[in-house]
């Protein structure tokens, strides 16, 4: 039933219907509402049997999830930003051990400077952990992806991270059809662990592996991710038959059939981009969009096919590898490397800066005039940057840049976006 609810609420209710047996999480904005809601359901007995375990940190949250999953329980957790970094050692371990934990990542920037707002820096920091990473475009998709994530994780024995934009999705109230319990039960079978710690049949998990086999064990993890490239579209298709709507898959294309310019992006900004594209198509520009849902494993073949026929690709991404450039752009470039397709990186929305249609239009106007640089930063205030650069040049003790920039900007509470 379609209801007007907060994204976090929709995800919490959907996760509950996936019947997790252990939920262990530490609250951090913007993930908090999800975990509060699940905690309340466990306390009220509406999510049962399920143990909600309070811990003192994210490191403990992931460690408990690993223990629970290894003991054969369906385990769920959620975090964001610094929380993900704090649990990072255990995040790698969960994947290396092949434990099918599902985690929501309410995407948020990473400090310093401390910033609670949305971007994709946290997800990118976990890019190489061995977790499958799925990105939701809407709150409906965020909810639906969790049902698919548990199935995917457990079939392959690989952990899955469902990324949803912090605040922009987690705190947005919109129509969400939370998957019905009977439908979820039919889609998601009882968890049958590939490996389980059972006192009656003792085994050990987590052996030390030396140079004699480390490569092989890692390669096996890689193969499981490649298997996911087959399984993810199959699950999305089964999901569509069972639930009557499209969610998940490797990527979504929009108006790409005749497009000469294609914009590639992850997550909720795709909605804003599509509105811009519709307007520009009405004005005669042949423009389309590729939204990448599965970021790890990266669907090289599908991306290459989706971009065939384009004359220019613009990757709009909410992350940035300092001293390097766009992270998603690099993957897209790998997918298209033999086609000499001009590729532009547009870094946008860092630390919660609003990505507006107005700014996207200005950037696309530049692109249409062939004025778009290979790497640009949407709405970058170069004047402020220059002030600090000049200060740094003039005096050795110029002080902390973050504080200096804020001081140059003055009061910002009056701003809308």
């Amino acid at each position, binding site marked *: 039933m379609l209801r007007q609810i907060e994204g976090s609420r929709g995800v919490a209710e959907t996760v509950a219907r996936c019947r997790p047996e252990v939920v262990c999480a530490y609250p951090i904005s*913007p993930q908090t509402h999800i975990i509060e809601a699940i905690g309340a359901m466990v306390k009220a007995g509406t999510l049962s049997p399920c143990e909600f375990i309070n811990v003192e940190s994210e490191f403990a949250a992931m460690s408990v999830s690993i223990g629970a999953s290894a003991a054969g329980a369906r385990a769920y957790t959620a975090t964001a930003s610094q929380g993900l970094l704090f649990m990072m050692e255990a995040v790698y371990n969960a994947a290396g051990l092949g434990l099918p934990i599902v985690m929501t990542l309410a995407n948020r920037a990473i400090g310093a400077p401390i910033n609670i707002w949305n971007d994709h820096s946290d997800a990118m920091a976990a890019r190489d952990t061995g977790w499958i990473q799925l990105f939701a475009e809407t709150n409906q998709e965020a909810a639906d992806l969790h049902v698919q994530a548990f199935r995917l994780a457990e079939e392959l024995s690989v952990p899955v991270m469902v990324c949803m934009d912090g605040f922009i999705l987690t705190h947005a109230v919109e129509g969400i059809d939370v998957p019905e319990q009977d439908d979820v039960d039919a889609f998601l079978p009882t968890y049958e662990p590939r490996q389980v710690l059972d006192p009656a049949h003792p085994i050990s998990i987590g052996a030390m592996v030396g140079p004699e086999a480390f490569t092989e064990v890692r390669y096996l993890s890689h193969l499981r991710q490649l298997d996911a490239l087959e399984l993810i579209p199959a699950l999305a298709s089964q999901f569509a038959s069972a639930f009557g709507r499209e969610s998940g898959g490797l990527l979504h294309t929009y108006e790409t059939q005749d497009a000469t310019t294609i914009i590639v992006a992850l997550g909720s900004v795709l909605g804003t981009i599509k*509105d811009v594209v519709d307007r520009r198509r009405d004005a005669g520009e042949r423009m389309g969009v590729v939204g990448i849902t599965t970021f790890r494993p990266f669907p090289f073949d599908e991306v290459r096919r989706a971009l065939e026929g384009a004359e220019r690709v613009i990757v709009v991404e909410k992350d940035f590898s300092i001293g390097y450039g766009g992270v998603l752009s690099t993957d897209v470039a790998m997918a298209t490397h033999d086609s000499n397709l001009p590729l532009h990186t547009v870094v946008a929305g860092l630390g919660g800066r609003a990505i507006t249609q107005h700014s996207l239009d200005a950037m696309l106007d530049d692109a249409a005039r062939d004025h778009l640089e290979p790497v640009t930063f949407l709405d970058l205030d170069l004047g402020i940057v220059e002030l600090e650069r000049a200060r740094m040049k003039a005096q050795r003790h110029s002080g902390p840049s973050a504080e200096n920039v804020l001081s140059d900007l003055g009061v910002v509470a*009056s701003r*809308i976006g």
Partner: protein
Amino acid sequence: MFQVRFHGRGGQGVVTAAEMLSMAAFDEGRFSQAFPSFGSERTGAPVVSFCRIDDRPIRSREPVIEPDALVIQDATLIHQVDLFAGLSREGYVLINTSKSFDELGLGDFLSTFHRERLLTCPATELALEHLGRPLPNAVLLGGFAALTAQVTLDSIAAAINERFKGATAERNVAAATAAYQLVKREEEELARASTN
């Protein structure tokens, strides 16, 4: 699409107001989206929230930059925050105050807008009377329904009942109804004044 921006201060239910408006529109079978401005929540700090209402699915996630309507829950923000940024000349403004626009120092500025779309509502006083607490958010939604006709008072009442329970819900509905009637009366007076 009809876009609304709510301005207020932390603790005044600015985010809840946008959410309840979106629920009211949803109850009428329309598409709607509400979201906050994502600041660090602090009591008393300026807060902004947004609501979009449309007859087709809403995809854009940008903040409401060019609002069709502004709901100003705290008049002390007027000379502190760029409240009217992007407001269309056809736009609606509802301010929580018992003062006139001239008394607020807005007379000249607002003279370029449609006068009948700019109204005030003493929502804090109504809230104190009905709820015993200075929470103007649900109250102003009653005034918003009267001013813009984007949603009915019944849908606002349904949204309040969905969000709150028991006496709190009842009192908020009563206060929103009073605000609705006040704003309607204000509109009628303006209409009479313009025909005379």
